[in-house]
């Protein structure tokens, strides 16, 4: 298997799907001639031309609306929001239109579209460019939300998202575009709505996704040296969530920690904690813990930003605490 970057894996996925289906096209700011603000669409404009790799004005609501409108009549757009932060300008089209059109029309419409957006913090981009919004979108019935953490999953999940037939919010993490991993060549699909046990273990389950997966794997490695055997569940899809895998893992380990880059309150971690008390209450040997970002707009200054974000040592100490509690 080839070692390629997360960025290259996404690019491969789009290229393969565009070759497979003429209805698939890319639309967004700087996706064409410029090659993508994060170079994810690099080379595709040269290969497919401006008809299928469409540069737009800076008009996020318009971009989302055009993409969703074209999906109403059967095209399959890949709508790139330069960053998830700017998707807030498009949220009316996403939430009030895209997510509801199928339902409101009594099933007459299908919105087969993907909205790709990089998100996340850690690059000192300041408060307006460091949001993680998976919980916002995952709150909405009618949307699917995908957050890949490895190059292989990025490719397999993006290909599945493009073929899915629903409006999929595909959230990439901009801090790991350059990270490398083994990615199967050719046709490679990862199903939506399925979590993946990235590391089996017996003492504690850590549920995570996206960039936090890397931190959790490091923490698990470190903990293993200290006699704590961590099972790592990578959600990959936030909605619909594979609660089966999460619940079964916790039934086995009896302890759960959720690690997310998003703010702690009202988020994915809280949702999982609720699911666990509903479906695995009798199996829990300790309160469910959350390791998440501090409740502040992201500061610019590097030490402050790092302080605000989950870190390996925070995960390690949470795991030690929960194991001690057990």
């Amino acid at each position, binding site marked *: 298997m080839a070692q390629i970057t997360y960025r290259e894996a996404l690019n491969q996925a789009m290229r393969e799907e565009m070759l497979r289906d003429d209805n698939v096209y890319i639309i967004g700011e700087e996706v064409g001639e410029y090659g993508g603000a994060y170079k994810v669409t690099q080379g595709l404009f040269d290969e497919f031309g401006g008809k299928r790799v469409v540069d737009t004005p800076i*008009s996020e609501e318009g971009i989302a609306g055009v993409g969703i409108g074209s999906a109403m*009549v059967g095209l399959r757009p890949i709508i790139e929001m330069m960053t998830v932060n700017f998707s807030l300008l498009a949220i009316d*089209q996403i939430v009030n239109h895209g997510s509801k059109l199928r339902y*409101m029309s009594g099933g*007459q419409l299908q919105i087969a579209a993907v909205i790709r957006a990089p998100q996340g913090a850690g690059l000192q981009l300041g408060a307006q460019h460091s949001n993680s919004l998976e919980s916002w979108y995952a709150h909405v019935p009618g949307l699917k939300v995908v957050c890949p953490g490895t190059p292989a999953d990025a490719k397999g999940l993006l290909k599945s998202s493009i073929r899915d037939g629903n409006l999929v919010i595909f959230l990439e993490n901009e801090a790991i575009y350059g990270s490398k991993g083994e990615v199967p060549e050719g046709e490679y699909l990862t199903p939506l709505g399925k979590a993946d046990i990235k590391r089996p273990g017996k003492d504690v389950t850590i549920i995570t996704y996206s960039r936090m997966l890397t931190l959790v794997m490091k923490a698990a490695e470190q903990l293993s040296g200290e006699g704590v055997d961590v099972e790592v569940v990578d959600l990959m899809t936030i909605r619909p969530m594979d609660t089966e895998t999460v619940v079964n893992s916790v039934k086995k380990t009896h302890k759960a920690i959720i690690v997310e880059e998003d703010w702690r309150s009202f988020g994915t971690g809280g949702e999982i904690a609720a699911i666990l008390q509903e479906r695995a209450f009798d199996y829990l040997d300790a309160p469910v813990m959350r390791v998440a970002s501090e409740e502040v707009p992201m500061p610019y200054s590097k030490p402050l930003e790092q302080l605000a974000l989950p870190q390996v040592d925070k995960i390690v100490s949470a795991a030690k605490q929960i194991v001690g509690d057990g």
Partner: protein
Amino acid sequence: MAIEQSKIFEKADILEMHRTMVLIRLFEERAMEMYTKGKIGGFLHLYIGQEAVGVGFISALREDDYVVGAYREHGQCIARGTDPKYVMAELYGKSTGISKGKGGSMHMFDVRRGFMGGHGIVGGGMPLAAGIGFAIKYRETDQVCVCFFGDGAVNEGAFHEAMNMVSLWKLPVIYVLENNFYGMGTAVYRASSIPDLIRRVCSYDIEREQVDGMDVLAVRKCAERTIQRAREDKEPRFVEAITYRYKGHSISDPGNYRTKEEIEEWRKRDPITRIENYLRENGMAADDEIKRVYDEVAAQIQGAVDFAEESPFPPPEALYEDVYA
């Protein structure tokens, strides 16, 4: 132009437009009645007074064209050919409704006829219509999309983003502004820096024209012309139809912001009365023939109400249907 004119003024076409306007008028009056009887819930935005705009434009379309409406769209859906009984059943929230009772007054969809909603957010349909225009261009067909919206939408960001994109990319979308002079209760001059709304699109270099939206023949003529031109050159068009709604913004609006005199003044220009005068004056229909249209339409509306009354509500299992594909 000469050929176009003669085609527009064919008697059968005019009679058909007249009948459709009467159908919409009586449908809306009946919907209002059934709302007050508690049969219909939610909001109810009536098209009474504006019938000529929807009918004039939609009657000029081909079957494979698209229509995007806003939330005053019952009449446009009916003008597109949807049987009123499915529209009435939708208002009743019945499973036989055109959107299976899931949409309601603001969300009529008849995708088979290219009627693409039914959108309840002011201006929200405008980028979607641009997207449909984008798909038409992508597939290189000669279809067009007509998008209706109100004067309130002109102040939304979605309007300006859509205008810029359809002009920039040359998409075959005809945007029809139904200027009824009030965005809910706020008069246009209180909301728009330029009350002459057609000037708000000057910066987008889109061919534009104004039409008397109370004159169905004028609207139809304008529609034939703009649709044909958009079909040929694949470029967007902008039409401002000057019109008026006789009722409040929605059924709960008593309309205290308008004078009785103003409403009466507009009623004198009633689009249905006007076309009936035209029919009589040109020997196309006598009083008894016009009356017969009303009788037949009234029976049709009664049939629609009966259908809605007799239809079942959606079963509980419908609740989770069609959230996802």
